[in-house]
């Protein structure tokens, strides 16, 4: 009844190739955009906005990893390292040269993209698990380099304090303002990814993932596209890292260690490989999981456990739930949350006349 596909006639090529050809889709997206972009910063409380801010940063990073892993099939455990490259580049540019954010953030992304290309070079010779281990090595080596090369890491402290971003002289200080700031970048990332995967480049990526040898035979330069995928994915990661540093006010290498890379892998897999909506779901899910665990335990556990015991339990329980959910999704629904969403949507396609 709602999801009407019949009766929608397109009269131009542009209409046919649009991102959201159906009116229902357009209304839904417009409503979401209206809610999150316009209504939220004005009405949500500061705490909830701060949660959303964390999710927005994760969304950008997860989209990047999805391009590399979901669409091009290259396993990468180095997401955290690329984020740290972007973060430190942006931080150094701000602190040393005083550049505004619309230069430092793309610069951070570009630097991360360069490093990403370097890390992607082994993909010429190795695939699959070996490539994954190579990216793991890259993660650890980049961590070490940033920590030890004081020129990059800002001295012995290896953390650089970053002032708030400012637009035309107005400093973006409140949570709501930062929220709008991050939202712009997130929207850019989402739209860019949606278009990327429908383009020629996106199709080449999918070809590399599915049948790389056949792709090479028909003339797609798989090495070139693999490097391109690494570059784009690292660009996203660099931007995400820079954004996170702006939000937290500090670039600190301890924020970008191996467990962050694993978190992003989990986001993409739980959300659903090869799906933009999946990355968004996965990013929100994994980011809010520790907080939700804490709420749930506080709400129910307060009945029979003291405060101290709870505090002890929560983080370990969070790890167990986190790992358990990964395994659960892998066994039960390998296509992730996106597939669950699609199932719901498919149900509503014929509703209420689904017989």
């Amino acid at each position, binding site marked *: 009844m709602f999801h009407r596909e019949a009766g929608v006639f397109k009269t131009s090529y542009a209409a046919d190739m649009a991102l959201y050809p159906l009116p229902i889709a357009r209304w839904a997206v417009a409503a979401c955009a209206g809610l999150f972009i316009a209504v939220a910063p004005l009405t949500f409380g500061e705490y909830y906005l701060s949660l959303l801010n964390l999710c927005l940063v994760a969304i950008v990073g997860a989209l990047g990893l999805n391009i590399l*892993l979901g669409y091009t099939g290259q*396993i990468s455990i180095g997401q955290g390292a690329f984020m740290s490259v972007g973060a430190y580049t942006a931080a150094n540019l701000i602190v040393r040269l005083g550049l505004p954010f619309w230069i430092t953030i793309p610069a951070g992304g570009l630097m991360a993209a360069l490093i990403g290309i370097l890390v992607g070079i*082994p993909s010429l*010779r*190795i695939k*699959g*698990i*070996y490539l*994954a*281990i*190579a990216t*793991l*090595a*890259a993660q*650890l*080596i980049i961590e*070490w380099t940033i*920590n*030890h090369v004081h020129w990059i890491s800002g001295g012995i402290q290896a953390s650089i304090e970053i002032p708030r971003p400012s637009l035309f002289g107005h400093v973006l200080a409140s949570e709501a303002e930062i929220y709008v700031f991050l939202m712009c970048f997130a929207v850019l990332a989402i739209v860019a990814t949606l278009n990327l995967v429908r383009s020629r480049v996106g199709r080449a990526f999918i070809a590399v993932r599915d049948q790389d*040898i056949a792709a090479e035979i028909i003339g797609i330069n798989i090495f070139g596209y693999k490097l391109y995928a690494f570059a784009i994915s690292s660009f996203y990661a660099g931007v995400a890292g820079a954004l996170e540093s702006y939000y937290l006010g500090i670039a600190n290498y301890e924020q970008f260690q*191996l467990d962050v890379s*694993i978190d992003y*892998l*989990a986001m993409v*897999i739980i959300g659903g490989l090869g799906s933009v909506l999946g990355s968004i779901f996965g990013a929100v899910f994994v980011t809010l999981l520790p907080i939700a665990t804490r709420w749930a335990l506080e709400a129910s556990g307060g009945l029979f456990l003291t405060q101290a015991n709870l505090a*002890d*339990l929560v*983080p*370990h*329980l*969070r*790890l*167990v739930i*986190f*790992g*358990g*959910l*990964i*395994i659960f999704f*892998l*066994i039960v629904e*390998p296509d992730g949350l996106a597939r669950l969403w699609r199932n719901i949507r498919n149900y509503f396609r014929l509703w209420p006349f689904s017989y």
Partner: protein
Amino acid sequence: MPEFEWQFTLVLLTNGVMIGLMYGLIALGFVLIYKATDAINFAQGEFVMFAAFIAASAANAAGLSFWASAGLAILGMVVLGFGLERVVLRPMIGRPVIAVVMATIGLAAVLRGGAVLAFGAGVQAIEMPIPDEPINLGLVLLSPVQLTGAAVSIVFLAVFTWFFLKSRVGIAMRAVADGQQVAMAVGIDVRRYFALAWAMAGIVSALGGVVWGAMLGVDNQLALVGLKVFPVVILGGLDSVLGAVVGGLVVGVVENVAAGYLDPVVGGGTKDFAPYVLMILALMIRPEGLFGRRRIERV
């Protein structure tokens, strides 16, 4: 570069060899699983940690003797190995490698959180019935714990090499690793051998856990030694038992010598990233490692 001193280098080498053999012990578990079931186990460090926790808790909380706790740890890990294979790995048969990798990563998180929930958060010590004082050989000092670890590693290298070459069960496992379909056609029960491989890896992890736990103390940070497993197996070959031990030796020696000579130059930390640089070189030049089998992809 600091001057080359004979005694210092000798000490570095000795330490490197012993630590390297202990790395090899952990890598053996990884290789066993890969060799038999083609699964990359990112949770190897957590296995070692979990086993160490079992042994430490048995000794400290339940007051069992060292041998009883070690035995309990072995038993516990065998049961864990069987259980994990059944619950987590069986459904993953035939799935792409990224899925199995992520499953073991998820497993690692569950074990890390679960170990503390089950055994408590503080650091525990494992007391081995061997002297504390280092053995003085004149030029070098040998730590008894490390010596034990190295000895266990060599013993198991011998045992597993014999096992895979000569015993029926070992040959059957190799057959399963080579080609599951063919093995099934010949009448080998593939699932039983998968379970057995995980159980054996559990045993090796238990031994590794006891020795590493005695050396470093048992808490959930012990799992981080598992990260060292990757350079070791890449250098040695993912599916080679000998490679695990030799790779461990190489990594141990390179680490120590690099740390001894390069640390003053670069300001520390070479120990952590030297093996990874070595690993990347190995991946570029000879991905299958020193003793691994060349993977040939058939189109």
